């Protein structure tokens, strides 16, 4: 068995440590490029949401490199994500690919198929102490890869040498691929934190703060969202991203939950009373949290026509008014152009800067 899987930011690093340790041979799909997008657009249903198209193309590029098995997660709705696997499987079948599609569905669809899929994904092993040990190492790696990006977003506008920042983060990410035990991970963590702390900073008086909210794939996958967070950082904004795979997993597993998400859901309640699939309610709640924390603006990133996010967008109109918080909505799909996006982000940062100065003057006068 040679298994491939979809990309999602640095997920491949954690999986790249997990699977070989379990004895499962994997083929990491090539990094997402324009060609990947073209494959997805050509083969997926025209009006499907963008992540379905890109992940389908990941599978195809993985198969072309020799994969014969696909690992994919499923869901129970109500957002389309839960049905991706089914549609992708049929498309691959119709294309004549003879692959084994392992769909890890929510245990709600039946505990037995869940365990069967889990077993298949763990190379036939049942939960042993070894599997747990490896899984927990992979989990820590995923966490740290997210932490690295959190640091990069926060620091980009503040450090004197951005290239150095990128080198430290990219270097650490590369090193993570070689990790095989807790000690080597810890060594990388400590060394990286030290390097980041020693980066020279600029003196900035009024740092603009921008929060990112939105759908789990588009809001995180910098190869698809034109790396909006980098654009923002280069324009001098401190960036925080509320979307995280770690929190998503915590919230989806049966016995854990994400404190952050629970908090966001509570904040959203006055506007959106319940979960509506995907990250719809998180988007609303996280925006409110950013407003309360004094962020200057929020960027909402989502796949064009994404149902939960379109709901969130409708509701954010009110949130934006109530909290006097500028929000820029960026719907991403294969038709999005980089130039247009950059212009919009620049104009947005401009507005935030002017507002900040104006508010400051008002405070000084009063």
């Amino acid at each position, binding site marked *: 068995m040679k298994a491939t899987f979809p990309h999602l930011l640095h997920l491949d690093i954690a999986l790249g440590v997990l699977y070989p340790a379990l004895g499962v041979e994997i083929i990491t799909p090539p990094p997402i490029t324009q060609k990947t997008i073209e494959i997805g657009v050509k083969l997926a*249903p*025209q*009006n*499907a*949401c963008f992540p*379905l198209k890109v992940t389908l193309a990941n599978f195809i590029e993985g198969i072309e490199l020799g994969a014969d098995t696909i690992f994919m997660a*499923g869901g*129970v*709705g*109500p*957002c*389309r994500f*839960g*049905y991706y*696997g*089914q*549609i992708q*499987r*049929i*498309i691959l079948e*119709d294309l004549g690919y003879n692959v084994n599609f392992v*769909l890890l*569905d929510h245990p*709600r*669809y039946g505990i037995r198929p869940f365990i069967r899929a889990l077993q298949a994904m763990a190379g036939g092993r049942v939960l042993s102490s070894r599997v747990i040990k490896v899984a927990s190492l992979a989990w820590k790696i995923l966490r740290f890869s997210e932490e690295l990006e959190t640091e990069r977003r926060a620091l980009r506008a503040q450090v004197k040498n951005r290239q150095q920042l990128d080198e430290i983060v990219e270097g650490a990410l590369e090193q993570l691929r070689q990790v095989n035990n807790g000690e080597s991970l810890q060594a990388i963590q400590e060394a990286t934190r030290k390097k980041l702390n020693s980066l020279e900073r600029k003196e900035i008086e009024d740092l603009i703060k921008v929060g990112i909210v939105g759908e789990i794939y588009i809001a995180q996958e910098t190869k698809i969202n034109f790396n909006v967070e980098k654009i923002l950082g280069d324009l001098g904004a401190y960036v925080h991203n509320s979307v995280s795979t770690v929190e998503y997993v915590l919230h989806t597993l049966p016995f854990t939950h994400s404190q952050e998400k629970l908090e966001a859901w509570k904040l959203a309640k006055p*506007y*959106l*009373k*319940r*979960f*509506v*699939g*995907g990250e*719809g309610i998180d988007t609303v709640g996280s925006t409110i949290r950013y407003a309360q924390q004094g962020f200057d603006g929020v960027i909402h990133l989502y796949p*064009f*026509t*994404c*149902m*939960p996010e*379109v*709901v969130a*967008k*409708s*509701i954010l*109109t*009110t949130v934006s008014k109530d909290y006097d918080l500028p929000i820029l909505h960026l*719907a991403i799909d294969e038709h999005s152009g980089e130039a247009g996006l950059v212009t919009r982000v620049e104009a947005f940062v401009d507005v935030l800067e002017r507002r900040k100065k104006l508010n400051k003057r008002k405070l000084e006068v009063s």
Partner: protein
Amino acid sequence: MKVGIPRGLLFYRFYALWKTFLEELGAEVVTSPPTNKNIIQQGLTYAVEEICFPAKVFLGHALYLKDRVDLLFIPRVVSFHRKEYNCPKILALPDLARNLFSIPGERIIDDEINMREEGMRGWQKGFLNIGKHFTTKESKIMKALQLAEKAYKEYQTNLKQGILPEDLIDHKNPLPLRERKIVLLGHTYLLSDSYINMNIAKKVNDLNYSVITPDMVEEEKKRYYLSTIPKPSFWTISNEIIGSALYHLKERKAEVRGFIHLVSFECGPDSLVGELIERLLKREKESLPYLRLEIDEHTGEAGLVTRLEAFVDMMEWRYKNIESHVSSFASS
């Protein structure tokens, strides 16, 4: 007390039930008029651009009623089938109306009807909560629900006979029956609102076909055929559409000549389920022609007619060719 039911989305499914229930509890029920240009315009003004056309139309209706009634009836119908959901927009419907039109929460009946986990208990709980807006007597509410369910059954029976929801609701004369049939797939609210679907049933009828919609297929049949695919979707209405398509495919009647699937451009479930159905149909050896028609506020009537006519020509041609093949085979 005047209670307004916007004429959109699940209205076409539950109208008889909702109306009876509310009236039994002493409410005066007002519905918005059939969709017109003005209502659509209102919906377009307030709704975000990317939301699906049926949701925009619904919001237009809600806005029409907003200042004409005491209470807007927009229950949150999370699910009306075990283990399944409605689409996120339907889940959020009362919140959308509340936020977009700045309506105070207490002016909307937004209680949740959710059969996903609890089945009939979730259903009853929902109506009990709705009923409490009108009376404290639970027995009165349950009585009203019983009568409402009876009205709903009757409504469904009428639909099974082949009457379209609009004709039932507005007491219009049904279209003349044609011998040949086209299976018309799609969400009831798209198939039933003749203004937004540009009167497709009539247009098909003028071309000498009657339509068969998912409403006209027995529930058990739909569910049986749905269960024959590896993983059904989790959207109830989409599942009924899949089930109906497979039913007509597998239990083919001679008078059925093809499939037309009416979808909304920005509809999430349609974007996947349309693809699924098309592929399932194509896999069948001697399948029937399939046409997917996308509708939104920009769809032009002329284009629709052209596509319909071309499709019917193709369908006839295919039918004749297969027919002659079959008969010559039989005589040889």
